[in-house]
């Protein structure tokens, strides 16, 4: 996977399987500290301590069709390649948090990529899941929240293409704006 947003999509699919109805994705770019941090926080059914120990092992998976599971292992490797790391905390029936830290200017740090495409796919999921996206670049913050969008939409479904393209544009432009403002 050559974009961090693909890893994010992958981890969020775990949250969806864990029956989460709210997923928070928080990206924190701090140029001074040279860090790029991704927090993925869900309120799904969480994991036991035992599962937590095994979860980033490629030969651990909850699926029944085979006995490898690469999602978290690949994400962890991507972080470690840049001198970063991954921390997972989880409480049964409370939820799980996956925090991944990358070195910001490391040559092996993949770009974030098309995060708006990732969010669209999460929004189009059959289960009714709310997404809170926050992108912090130094002191500037952009947020997107499906709960606010729903309030405006008054029952018009997310599957409406104009809604989809509005969301895509909003996220794309929003991130561009904070980057521009900060570099001024």
């Amino acid at each position, binding site marked *: *996977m050559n974009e961090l947003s*693909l890893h994010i*999509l*992958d981890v969020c*699919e775990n949250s969806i*399987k864990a029956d989460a109805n709210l997923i928070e994705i928080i990206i924190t770019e701090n140029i001074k500290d040279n860090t790029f941090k991704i927090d993925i926080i869900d309120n799904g059914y969480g994991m036991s301590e035992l599962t937590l120990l095994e979860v980033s092992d490629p030969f651990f998976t909850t*699926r029944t*069709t*085979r006995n490898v*599971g*690469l*999602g978290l292992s*690949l994400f962890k490797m991507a972080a470690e390649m840049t001198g970063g790391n991954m921390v997972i905390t989880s409480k049964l029936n409370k939820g799980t948090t996956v925090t991944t830290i990358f070195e910001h200017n490391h040559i092996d740090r993949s770009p974030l990529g*098309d995060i708006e*495409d*990732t969010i*669209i*796919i999460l929004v*189009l*999921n*059959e289960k009714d899941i709310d997404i809170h996206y926050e992108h912090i670049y130094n002191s500037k913050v952009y947020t997107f929240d499906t709960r606010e*969008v729903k309030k*405006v*939409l*008054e029952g*018009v*479904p997310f*599957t*409406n*293409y*104009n*809604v*989809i*393209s*509005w969301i895509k*544009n*909003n996220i794309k*432009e*929003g991130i561009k*704006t904070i980057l521009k403002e900060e570099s001024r």
Partner: protein
Amino acid sequence: MKSLDDLKKIRDAAQSKVTMRGKNDGMRILVGMATCGISAGARPVMNKFVEMIADYKIEKVTVTPVGCIGECAIEPIVEVLQGEERTTYCRVDEDAVERIVNEHIIGGKVVLDYVIGKYRL
């Protein structure tokens, strides 16, 4: 930036031509979106479906991300469901999406070149 006012306009336009429908009504397109699918390129495939269906204003078709069905080597896998009929496509890319939409979704004819097991595995 696209503002909330724009979103309100979109809402009003959508409400005025109410075509509300059940979620499982009509044709369904399922795109495998587990680790295997994502790394094989399922995200652009799904987005292409969404875009084309909107472009052609095709009604009663939904596109949904789903998990892994256990054939990771031939991802991205796309299933088209219509009533009792289920077609499974494998190694789908954006060109394949164009053919599936034009020939299968619109034309009603299965695109044999991409069907699992029949011509390629």
